[in-house]
């Protein structure tokens, strides 16, 4: 049994799902603290300490949560994610599904009419087959049959999809610098305050810059890839390289002629002609020299495409070099700030 994940969005740009995201709530909740303070500050005279504490705790928690997104993404690229260890044998899931089928039939035959008993029976089946950590069972009223019930099998999605974490990361990134500013009450009179505020702004601005690249670059890349995608170009270049290696074999002179051609950025007609002549001098028959030259020219052009695509593709990641180091520094400063507050 395979479980598909519900709630996939429509096809379309990323910003649309960011705007529709429920993570807005987090943004609003975080900002409600300074907003409430602003509205009721006259009545809250004397409570400044608590306001400072609330904004500080929220900002620190927000940054921690935002950093967990990066950790989650990293860990799921390795086999060590705890969720990957939840795997149960497919046969257990199948067996559970068969037994749930029997339960569903019994429900439709009117043998069970108590919702609680159905929930218990369904959960017992999941537990008996050892699949309770993987599937969630929901007993719902059957629309077609008044008074009847249906048992739905849903995936557990323990940590939630990375996409949800990304949305949360984005909104936390927007909310936290504002909290940092309020936490320092807008004053920049200490080195720590200047450093924290500056870094918070840098992290958010670079994050927004990255998001803009994420929104724009895939479209540009897709247009550039309309003839040959990066993956295809990569596979093709390897295949051409293999063919060339086979054709050239151990002939050192031919190898050097081909290598110097392939190292070029462009396959010009003159250069191809020179390579063909070099190959003939290296002992290749005219037809073979022609074939190998064509292969090498193809490889030069595929490699040029690949590097052009790669340049654009790199935009999708290089912005992180200006986002992650300030973010790490910011986290370190936040930690130092918290320790120093408690220490002194």
């Amino acid at each position, binding site marked *: 049994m395979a479980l598909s994940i519900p709630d996939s969005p429509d096809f379309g740009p990323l910003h649309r799902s960011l705007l529709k995201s429920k993570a807005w709530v987090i943004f609003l909740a975080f900002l409600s603290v300074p907003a409430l303070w602003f509205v009721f500050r006259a009545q809250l005279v004397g409570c400044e300490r608590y306001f400072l504490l609330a904004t500080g705790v929220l900002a620190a928690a927000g940054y921690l949560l935002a950093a967990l997104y990066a950790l989650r993404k990293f860990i799921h690229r390795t086999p060590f994610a705890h969720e990957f260890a939840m795997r149960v044998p497919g046969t257990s899931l199948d067996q559970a599904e068969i037994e749930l089928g029997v339960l569903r039939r019994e429900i439709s035959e009117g043998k069970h009419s108590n919702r609680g008993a159905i929930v218990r029976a369904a959960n017992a089946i999941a537990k008996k087959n050892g699949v309770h950590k993987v599937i969630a069972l929901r007993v719902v009223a059957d629309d077609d049959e008044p008074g009847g019930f249906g048992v739905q099998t849903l995936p557990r999605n323990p940590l939630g999809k990375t996409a949800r974490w990304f949305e949360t990361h984005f909104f936390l990134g927007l909310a936290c610098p504002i909290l940092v500013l309020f936490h320092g009450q807008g004053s920049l009179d200490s080195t720590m305050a200047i450093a924290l505020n500056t870094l918070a702004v840098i992290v958010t601005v670079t994050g927004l810059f990255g998001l803009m690249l994420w929104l724009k670059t*895939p479209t540009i890349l897709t247009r550039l890839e309309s003839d040959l995608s990066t993956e295809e170009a990569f596979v093709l270049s390897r295949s051409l390289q293999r063919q060339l290696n086979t054709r050239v074999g151990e002939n050192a002179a031919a190898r050097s002629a081909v290598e110097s051609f392939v190292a070029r950025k462009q396959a010009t007609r003159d250069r191809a002609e020179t390579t063909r002549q070099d190959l003939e001098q290296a002992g290749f028959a005219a037809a073979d020299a022609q074939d190998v030259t064509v292969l090498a020219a193809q490889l030069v052009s595929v490699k040029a495409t690949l590097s052009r695509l790669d340049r654009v593709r790199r935009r999708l990641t290089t912005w992180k070099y200006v986002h992650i180091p300030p973010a790490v520094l910011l986290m370190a400063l936040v930690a130092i700030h918290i320790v120093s507050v408690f220490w002194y």
Partner: protein
Amino acid sequence: MNEDRFLTALRRFPLFATLSDHGFQQLATHHQKEVVEAGASLLSQGDYRDRFCVLVSGVASSFMVEPSGQRADLGTIGPGDYFGELCAVSGQPSSSSVIAESHCTMIVLEQPLFRMLYAEPDFAELIDGSYRDRALTLHLRAAPLLSGLETSDLDLIRANAELEVFPKGTTIAHEGAPVGALFLVRSGAVKSTRSGSGEQVTGYFMANSSFGERAFLDGSHTWTETYVAMAKTDIVRIDRATTDQVLARSPKAMELLHEAAGRIFEQDELEVMGHNQSVKGGDALAIDMHRCIRCNVCVESCVAVHEDRVPRLSKRGHRVYAGDVPVTLATSCYHCDIPECMLACGFGAIRRDSQGMVRFVEANCIGCGSCSMACPYGVIRMTPAPGSGERRGVLKHKLWETLPLVGPRMYERRQQKLIEQEQKSDEPIVNAQGIPVTAKAIKCDRCEGLPFEACVYNCPTEAIRRVDPGSLFRKPV
């Protein structure tokens, strides 16, 4: 009953009486005996169960739920009777249900054993005979084109209809030839083409659809298109005289025919899936190219959830458009309606599970590569067999081997040692039937046993998701 008496009783069943001694020996060795209590469900309508079952004792009953929602009893099953051959032969979901009416003993033949016996002509003849009878009966009850007809009309059709099985690539009707019948597709898929300046695809006909209606509605006498089976296809053929007779006396039949004539699958919708003369599947992994930030998390997650560290996902695939959004249909199993891979595997190493997923039975796979060649979408890849000493780069990493600089070297060294050890061992690697294993076939298993599909679950932008491929193209009909 002791085992000898049990086997003697089996040998007397007409189904097994004609088996060769070798075939019966295989049956005796590899069958599974199952005992069930009254009320147990032995087969459910709509389920994919590719097991073939023979009742040895007890009584079971068979029924189906018709499209109208009515339950139709299909009779009782007693000792010596069998069921499940429709699924076992065609790989299609079951069209009926079977329930034990009393304490029953039955024997179950899993795919490899069934296939082995099915290779014997006498056994195959019996199975094919009952396949035709049952498929015809069940389809006439389930076909949307016939739903709501009077019993007398249905009886007339039943008496004159025939089930024909067309292998992949065979022509069912030629453009310009006389229209001799109305055709109902029971399973498989049919492509219609018109000649002109090159071959032009005019439509696709999937299970439960029909073709030939237009000839009866506008009175034309010749086919205006050529119809070709895109996979092994079961067709119910209702001859012209019977169709004319039913249409003359039943206004309802005329109404249904009009409806069906307009219900052709949209012309271009399946062209991408059908480019290889094959049949679409039910599930595709689609990547929204305007969202995909090329981070490769999907592929790396796929690697991470598989012990052998080989990705099942390749982001290369067909480019289609959902509206104006470019979408790549990644190379990942479609769990086809008609799994060519399963039909091509002679070792029972691919089967459908009860949820319709097409899965490998690793223990049976010998790595012959037939499935890989048969899959029209190039989904199945062959990797060196486990323990064959050739599995470079597929060993699972230890935590410390992921460390920068030193990690890769430690991994390389451990791998080299393992390969040397394996090369020293003379033990041939064999499958469950004792046949030497030369490689291993792999494809997307939808992260079997996990509560999510790792690629979909971990994509930060939700660029990759499961879709019904038809939904990308299909316009309402």
